[in-house]
């Protein structure tokens, strides 16, 4: 690293002190369960937008997916388009306002609780809570790995100690300050990320001689695509991969559709719609959220692809080669060699902020899923007054789980594990969540059917069909003696394209066959009170 450790140390220290201050502020303001769970339903629209964006965009979106753009090219920009249109516009305008109103009508304070109360089923709440509690530590584990690797490299300290430092800091403000602390620290981290990414984009285009010149130079490098990638369908960094090839399927099904649609059913994001007073706040958040996401994923994917030009002009190698074949190292390598020293410091804080904002929300969501949804509402049938204390303990336990995973998981899993979690959430929750908000005819049995079909078909596809997960897992090989149960193109298709439609069909068919939910309950769910 070119920048002296003491300089970075001072910046990080100042940054951490502000984080602690905001955490303490959250602690002071937290009096009721609603404060701890959903920040008292009184969050400022800008804080909502930045917090949503900063939670949405983790280090893996910038480093992992930016690096993927370095290898696969600008086709990833379709994911940025999806992030803005689906992740912000559709999420806030269509899902957000109904989620907010229904959670208020039903007095729901978590995502599983909203679904459970809408369909009058403790099972839905308990199962959803358990699903989040079991699989989210995996997602949190990889975000933790990303953050800790960054601290390790920047401050020259041991990786294991870096994991502990990061965990203790985030845990301290999440456990004490609840969602108020989480969202205010998120907002500050989001602002920092925004500034960092603006600099990154500007420096990149200036260094490469302007927008058109930079893109033209990248287009002119088409013949440099390595043979292995070209055989997989790679046609150059400013072209889409050839239709139907393995790279095309990875790009379109896993990255663009999997992550692009999966965001709608992310519990840690959906809960944020419940934190504002009225729909006007959601509209204002759209105003801030659209450009924010453009500056995050749009910039990361563009710069990731353009890094090829920089490396080729300066070292004669493409990015993948310059980063030693590891896509996760393309962006850090590019920042270190191409950017001025002061920017390196700024960008390091940007990455630390991205990791911490995602981690804190994950810890909060896992804790409330286990402590409130699973334990209190399902196991104890709602019969316990000390929800906050139980949730705090649950947060501590899930944090421990993700730390253990951070020590165990290999580094190369970062981008893939993010996609797996997003896909699982889409299959398990999206049909039921969509039905809850938009289809009054959906019944409890239909919702349960979609939840179970979505969860298990998604897990089945990952374990037995999709080669990129099934082969390393080895369960199919152990049970049936074959690496995947089906062969051919199917083994490239992301589970989201199979499991989510299946779950939708199950939800619709079973709903139509079962007794509708009573009108009085539906009125209670959908009523819109005005002042």
């Amino acid at each position: 690293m070119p920048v002296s450790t003491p300089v970075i140390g001072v910046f990080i220290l100042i940054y951490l002190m502000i984080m602690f201050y905001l955490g303490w502020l959250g602690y002071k303001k937290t009096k009721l369960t609603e404060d701890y769970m959903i920040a008292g339903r009184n969050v400022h629209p800008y804080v909502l937008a930045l917090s949503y964006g900063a939670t949405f965009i983790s280090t893996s979106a910038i480093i992992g997916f930016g690096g993927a753009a370095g290898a696969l090219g600008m086709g990833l920009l379709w994911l940025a388009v999806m992030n803005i249109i689906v992740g912000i516009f559709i999420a806030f305008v269509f899902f957000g306002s109904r989620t907010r109103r229904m959670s208020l009508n039903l007095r729901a304070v978590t995502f599983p609780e909203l679904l459970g109360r809408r369909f009058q089923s403790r099972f839905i709440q308990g199962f959803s809570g358990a699903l989040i509690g079991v699989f989210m530590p995996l997602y949190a584990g990889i975000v933790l790995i990303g953050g800790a690797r960054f601290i390790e490299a920047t401050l020259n300290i041991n990786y294991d100690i870096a994991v502990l430092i990061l965990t203790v800091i985030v845990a301290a403000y999440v456990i004490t300050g609840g969602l108020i602390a989480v969202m205010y620290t998120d907002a500050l981290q989001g602002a920092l990320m925004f500034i960092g990414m603006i600099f990154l984009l500007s420096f990149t285009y200036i260094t490469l001689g302007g927008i058109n010149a930079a893109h033209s130079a990248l287009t002119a490098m088409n013949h440099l695509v390595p043979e292995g990638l070209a055989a997989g369908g790679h046609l150059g960094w400013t072209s889409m991969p050839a239709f139907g090839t393995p790279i095309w399927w990875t790009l379109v099904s896993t990255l663009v559709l999997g992550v692009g649609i999966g965001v709608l059913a992310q519990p840690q994001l959906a809960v944020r719609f419940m934190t504002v007073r009225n729909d006007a706040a959601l509209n204002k958040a759209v105003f801030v959220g659209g450009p924010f996401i453009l500056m995050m994923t749009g910039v990361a994917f563009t710069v990731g692809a353009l890094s090829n030009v920089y490396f080729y002009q300066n070292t004669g190698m493409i990015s993948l080669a310059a980063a030693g074949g590891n896509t996760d190292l393309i962006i850090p390598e590019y920042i270190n060699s191409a950017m001025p020293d002061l920017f390196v410091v700024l960008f390091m804080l940007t990455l630390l902020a991205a990791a911490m904002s995602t981690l804190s929300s994950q810890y909060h969501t896992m804790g409330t899923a286990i402590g409130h949804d699973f334990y209190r509402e399902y196991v104890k049938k709602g019969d316990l007054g000390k929800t906050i204390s139980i949730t705090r303990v649950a947060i501590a336990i899930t944090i421990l789980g993700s730390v253990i995973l951070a020590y165990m998981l290999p580094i190369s899993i970062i981008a893939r594990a993010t996609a797996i979690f997003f896909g699982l959430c889409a299959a398990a929750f999206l049909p039921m969540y969509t039905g809850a908000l938009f289809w009054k005819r959906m019944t409890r049995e239909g919702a349960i059917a979609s939840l179970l079909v979505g969860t298990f078909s998604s897990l089945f596809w990952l374990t037995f069909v999709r080669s990129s997960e099934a082969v390393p897992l080895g369960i199919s090989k152990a049970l049936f003696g074959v690496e995947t149960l089906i062969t051919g193109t199917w083994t490239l298709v992301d589970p989201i394209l199979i499991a989510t439609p299946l779950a939708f069909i199950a939800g619709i068919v079973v709903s139509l066959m079962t007794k509708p939910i009573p009108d009085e309950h539906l009125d209670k769910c959908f009523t819109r009170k005005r002042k």
Partner: protein
Amino acid sequence: MLGIDDPYIWIAYILCFISAIGCMIYGAIKWNDGLDDEDVE
């Protein structure tokens, strides 16, 4: 267009900006819509 030959790429590049600007226009037009919604107690 923009130094990019494949239309599927430059369309995505431009769509990123259009969709972000669209979000801003929507937010600005609807700035105060929904202010009359119920308050928290």
